[in-house]
């Protein structure tokens, strides 16, 4: 065991750093720095540059465009991206659907859908949760019945409502969990469908969240016809796909590298923000103690993730232990926004979303949006299986209770 980077790893780091510096879109950088809301093309612009380089999907199998990087290289990759504050590649296609496709999909499905995900050409969204099925996802009610179309082909006729569909307003396609056997046990009657969001009968309605943003949506499905060949894996066995996807969703959710970057930013802010005694906030014994505690917590999480990754590279997929990463990762992300809001002092209060800066700035730049970020980040302990559910998973699957 050691933590040293080999010379070739250092060379890799330099290569990644230089690539980001030379190729990151300037327009996107400026929008991010101004805190503007991003559009579809903004999200895809960096993805497509990486796809050209062959770096958009590092964790994929080599044959579908993976990079075959060592765990160390993947670690360096996320570190450098966090350091440069690049826009994270959207997870819906790349890290949620794709593993399901290459594990459970037919050769035809893989060939049809994986390239569009890899190249950043097709925007995917997730149709999992329903108003009545959140933590208890298996109780979902969206119904899919098999029918014969006028063209003589077989279809599923889908009816129901999905909710919390993140960035669904931009989606070209969605992966949906639907009930194909209403009489079976909850988990047994579910199928995994890929649905073209342009199909007639689909309505996407915005949900405005408490900080004022539009990230999530309701998706209504009214007699939506889906070709049977768009089902992944066997009919009524979609829960197997769903579970595999959730484990991948959880392992990516730790966000260690990004939290390290945000911690560094918090330190910088606390080095300039005033404390009550006229010194700087980072010298304030109360605040300093909280930053130190958070840093130690994050170090522990980083090593837990590294140990998990080491297990994965030796052939184990992400197991129920990934729930630890989800719980701790999101707690740390929330704590970071909490301390950033605290650091802003009085300037946490102004609400400047959408007002523009033409009226003159209010408060220091680093205080902009900190309250909104704090409010918004409360979602992290709710989504992807709430942290209470993650504790249930650990209790059952890891501790055998």
């Amino acid at each position, binding site marked *: 065991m050691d933590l040293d980077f080999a010379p070739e790893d250092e060379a890799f780091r330099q290569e990644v750093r230089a690539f980001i510096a030379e190729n990151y879109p300037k327009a996107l950088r400026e929008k991010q720095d101004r805190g503007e809301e991003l559009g579809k093309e903004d999200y895809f612009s960096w993805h497509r540059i990486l796809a050209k380089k062959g770096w958009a999907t590092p964790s994929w199998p080599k044959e579908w465009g993976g990079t075959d990087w060592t765990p160390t290289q993947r670690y360096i990759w996320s570190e450098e991206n966090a350091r440069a504050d690049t826009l994270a590649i959207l997870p819906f296609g790349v890290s949620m659907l794709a593993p399901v496709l290459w594990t459970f999909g037919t050769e035809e499905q893989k060939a049809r859908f994986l390239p569009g995900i890899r190249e950043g050409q097709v925007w995917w969204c997730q149709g999992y949760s329903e108003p009545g099925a*959140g933590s208890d996802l298996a*109780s979902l009610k969206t119904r899919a019945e098999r029918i014969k179309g006028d063209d003589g082909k077989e279809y599923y006729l889908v009816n129901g409502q999905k909710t919390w569909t993140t960035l669904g307003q931009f989606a070209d396609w969605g992966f949906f969990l639907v009930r194909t056997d209403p009489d079976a046990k909850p988990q047994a009657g579910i199928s995994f469908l890929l649905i073209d969001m342009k199909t007639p009968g689909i309505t996407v309605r915005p949900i405005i969240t408490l*900080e004022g943003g539009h990230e999530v949506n309701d998706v209504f499905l009214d007699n939506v016809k889906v070709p049977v060949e768009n089902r992944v894996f066997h009919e009524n066995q979609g829960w197997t796909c769903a579970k595999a996807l959730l484990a991948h969703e959880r392992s990516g959710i730790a966000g260690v590298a990004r939290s390290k970057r945000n911690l560094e930013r918090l330190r910088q802010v606390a080095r300039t923000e005033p404390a009550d005694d006229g010194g700087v906030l980072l010298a304030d014994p109360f605040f300093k103690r909280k930053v130190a505690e958070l840093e130690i917590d994050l170090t522990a999480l980083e090593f837990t993730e590294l140990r998990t990754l080491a297990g994965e590279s030796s052939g184990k997929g992400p197991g129920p232990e990934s729930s630890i990463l989800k719980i701790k990762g999101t707690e740390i992300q929330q704590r970071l926004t909490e301390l950033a809001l605290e650091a802003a002092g009085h300037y946490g209060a102004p609400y400047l979303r959408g007002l523009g800066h033409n009226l003159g700035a209010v408060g220091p730049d680093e205080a902009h949006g900190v309250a909104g970020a704090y*409010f918004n980040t409360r979602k992290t302990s709710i989504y992807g299986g709430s942290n209470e559910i993650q504790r249930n998973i650990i209790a059952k699957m890891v501790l055998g209770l």
Partner: protein
Amino acid sequence: MDLSFTEEQTLLRDSVAAYLGDAYGFDARRAAIASPAGWRPKVWSAFAEELGILGASFPEELGGLGGGPIETMVVMEEFGRALVVEPYLGTVVIGGGFLKRAGTDKAKALIEDLIAGKAVFAFAQAESQARYRLSNIATKAVKTGAGYEISGQKAVVIGAPWATHLIVTARTAGGQSEEKGVSVFLVDKTAKGVTCRDYPTVDGRRASEITFEKVVVGPEALIGPLDGAYPLIETVVDEAIAATCAEACGVLRKLHEGTLEYTRGRKQFGQPISAFQVLQHRMVDMFIQVEQSVSMSVMAHIALGGDAEARAKGVSAAKVQIGRACKFVGQNAIQLHGGMGMTDEMAIGHYFKRATMIEGEFGNTDHHLARYERLSLDQAA
């Protein structure tokens, strides 16, 4: 010793609650805070005329109802329950707090206007370099013949867009953070040289960044002793903190009640989620925090009548308890509502946002813990 409310205080609470129940529903509030004005002058008139609460805590000889801190506490708790944005704190508690101690004829006349709902006040105290230290004041007031000339900048002045008058703290002598050399002035908001940059706040109120550029005021603008107003400022701010703690209690109760109601109605895994022990215990812990907060609010309001040290200690202790409760109860209310708690259309998120802001108002938990330590422990050591 008697910790019960008088009949009058209970009547006051009931009448405020009844009015807010009619006029201050969630949708009406939402429409008001989204409107260009951001508040409802009609509601303010009703406070003055229909309810008569703007004068509740003023002595009778000044035209008030002769109440005190407990009356303010009762009103503020109800305001917390309804998330009232109208500037009662800035006007009655802070503006009134300074004016009733000013002793001038001008102050007396203004109190009449205040009680009638015609004069509205905002407290221009905070500055960007000061964090929560009350004595850190760079805004200067220079003596010019008969009056003063005020120059400087004030940060996040809550309620300023609605105010007719500003209560401005300024340095008339001494170094930037010295307690000596601080004075308080009453400034007409329309005075020449006052520039406001107005904006909404994340909890649905309005505030301003205010620049004072050689604003000329007469000698009657001075409230309290020249150079020696710091103890007065501390007194009034402590009263404002106690009132904010009372408001927080109303907010916290609603957060807790809303969570109980939601978890009873929300079914997952074939049962209401309130049946899960892990969530029951969480809601019990929230409940304990709410009760402890109400206790500390009562304690602080009683402490306002004590000497300066007891008052400061009691108020800071209450603010620490309430700051922590705002965080714990607020965060868990959202968590137990799940995704619904994240939506703008449910009231719970709006209570959470107000609770979050209260934690930072007039000094956050760390600030008051340090103040408490100085008052309670350092002197004993």
